[in-house]
């Protein structure tokens, strides 16, 4: 059954059809929320609330990019939580460390243990770099560079102008780059930037 069909059924009250859409996008939604909010519980709340609101507001979806429409709701739920938490100027160093869910699974059987370890270390460091960014930059860089959204989709999701999206993305990338640069000794050898 196509996505459009599922959406139409869901609009008619078929929760199971909507759940099929949830199964398709919950990983993406959680991934974005988790990297935007920095803790798993808040991310789960944001995603759950986002899906509930999406279902209740499904009549407002009039065709187009459902993925972007859904992610806009989830992203706004993330921002709701951030506002409720009154973004703190400092946070625990422990929270900065990548949790187990951030460790990428070993997908290449031919990868050596050292390579696997290095890749996981790099992933953890990059996750920390992302966490060091402001929420708006986190959202943009996660959507663009991790999940492959286009600039226009990101602009639709964040309800910002294209220029703002580009600006935030560039700052976010530079921020992660600078973070990695200043933690270069933590990077596995193959991944270290050249010193300047």
């Amino acid at each position: 059954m196509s996505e459009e069909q599922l959406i139409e059924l869901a609009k008619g009250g078929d929760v199971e059809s909507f759940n099929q859409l949830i199964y398709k996008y919950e990983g993406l939604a959680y991934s974005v929320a988790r990297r935007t909010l920095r803790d798993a519980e808040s991310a789960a709340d944001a995603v759950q609330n986002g899906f509930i609101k999406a279902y209740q507001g499904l009549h407002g979806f009039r065709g187009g990019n459902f993925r972007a429409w859904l992610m806009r709701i989830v992203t706004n739920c993330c921002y709701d939580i951030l506002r409720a938490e009154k973004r703190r100027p400092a946070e625990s160093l422990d929270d900065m460390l990548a949790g187990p869910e951030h460790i990428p699974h070993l997908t290449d059987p031919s990868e050596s243990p050292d390579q696997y370890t290095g890749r996981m270390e790099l992933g953890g460091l990059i996750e920390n770099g992302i966490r060091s960014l402001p929420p708006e930059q986190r959202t943009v860089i996660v959507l663009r560079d991790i999940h492959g959204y286009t600039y226009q989709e990101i602009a639709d999701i964040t309800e910002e102008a294209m220029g703002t999206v580009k600006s935030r993305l560039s700052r976010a990338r530079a921020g992660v780059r600078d973070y990695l640069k200043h933690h270069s000794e933590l990077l596995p050898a193959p991944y270290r930037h050249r010193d300047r």
Partner: protein
Amino acid sequence: MSSSDYPHISDEMLSAYIDGVSTEDEQNLIESVAASDAEVAWRLSSLRKTVSYLNDLPELAPPRSFALAVDNYSVAAQATEAPQLVPKPGSAAQAEPTSGRAHQGGWWSSLQDLLQGGLFQGGLFQSGGLRLNNAMIASAALVLLLIGGGIFFGDLVRQNRAMLNGVAESSDQPNIVDAAPVEPAPIEAADTTQTMTGAATASENRSESDALGAAPASDESAETSSLASGPIVAPTSTSPTTSTAVSVAVVPTATPFPAATETVPIVPTATPTAQIDLPVAAAAVNPNITPAEPLTKPTALPTPDMPLAQSQESSQSNRSTRVQPLAAQAPPLGPAGPQGPPITDGESADAGVDNAPLKAYDIQQDERDNSAQDLNVTGLEDKAELEDRAEMETSTMVAIPETSRSDEAASSNRRVPNIGATSGITTSTQAAGATEFITTERDLASSVSSQETELMTDISSLRIEVDDETGGLLGQILVRAPDNSFRPAALSGIRLVKIDPAHEAATTTIEYGPVDIEGIFIFTNVEPGKYVLEGENAGMLFKLPSPDDEMQELHVIIDAGEQINLGKIRYETLP
């Protein structure tokens, strides 16, 4: 920091180039410059590498499924009306009534339309709560069914009489007089074990079922109530304390009830139509979900520019401890966002603090709870400024512990700041060794007002860790208050703009840092050079003038390994 001859080739241009969304002219420029300028080449390759690292990050696996619980109800979203309850296909709610009466689709909707817009114009069913509306509709439906049932039985009796008397009844009109008298069953208190859908508590379950009259009092009314077209809360064995039980049996036709959540009114208005308690709603879906606990461990954030040794040391020593904010008792460094008026106005330190340029989406604007009212959507149109403020979270600020004044006075290695000749600032050093800027025409004793003594942080006692390659800068900006005292300036942040020594023009290299509630700003890991300070207030930027000469800009020259403490910078006025 950039030392390239091409400062106009910004990271934004390079980022767009990497994504293939730059113009042809920009592409040609970047490619030609990258081939000749090492700085630009490095920036481009480092950004590319960073993007590739990010591309390799996996999608995070969710800890559980977020599918909505279906149970015995589903919520139909309609284009213009509030969500309605419809029976789930195949559920008991859709079973035929025992009387064998055929399902008459649509008549319930018609009844509701009649009640809402016809006989009861003026909003009888437009007002009131969910329970009242449900009860009224159920009662009306019950009455109608009773009348209809009476007509049916009347016909049946009449036919029987006719058969007995051998006289066929030719009339099709029901003889109401012959109908068995049927009285509407009173609404009885429901069994306490009955529950409603959604996130209702036990007590609310009971009151909800009370309103719906779930438990008929007599056999006759039990029969008629089984014919009722209102929602019947079927007795279940579910514990009243269960917040996830869903056991609403919705009788035959689509009953236009609002979504079975206690906070959803019937009529979609501008008022919030659904306020979902996140933890409870989540629990309604998955009982294993527990409400999120707020983070309660604010500690210093290792800044991106923090030297590695410093970050490692701090991470090792502070891994499980809190790094105190700038001053033990002073408010933390001002978060991104407009600062409120000076404290002397009586407002809290957190007044007006907001940072995220957040937008409400257009689907269910009303569903945002009241906590969202403090969101700054007030009309700061300059997105760049909003982003600058947002960047304060990752600014090169580090919380440093307050040290005792006496200790610092004894061992201070404070030096007279190296101020450019254009600044016009006169400097003086106090006997205690602390460095402080004061204007020559002011007497130090008289300028220290009772309000200043209330400021918790002694700017002269603050220190910044510097290394051999970078320096640090800190200061405290005060402005004359109406009572002639000096108060912290109401600035949201300070921009440190590096001046190109060759062209005496500001470069794109800008450091941005917040100003806390006491007017204190701190910059660490600052590349050596000459800087001008810019203040930001309510989206406006202005160069900080020299306290002695407002026509002169305040310039600072920072050397490697040098900490510059500007001390208290006092102004009569600021833009």
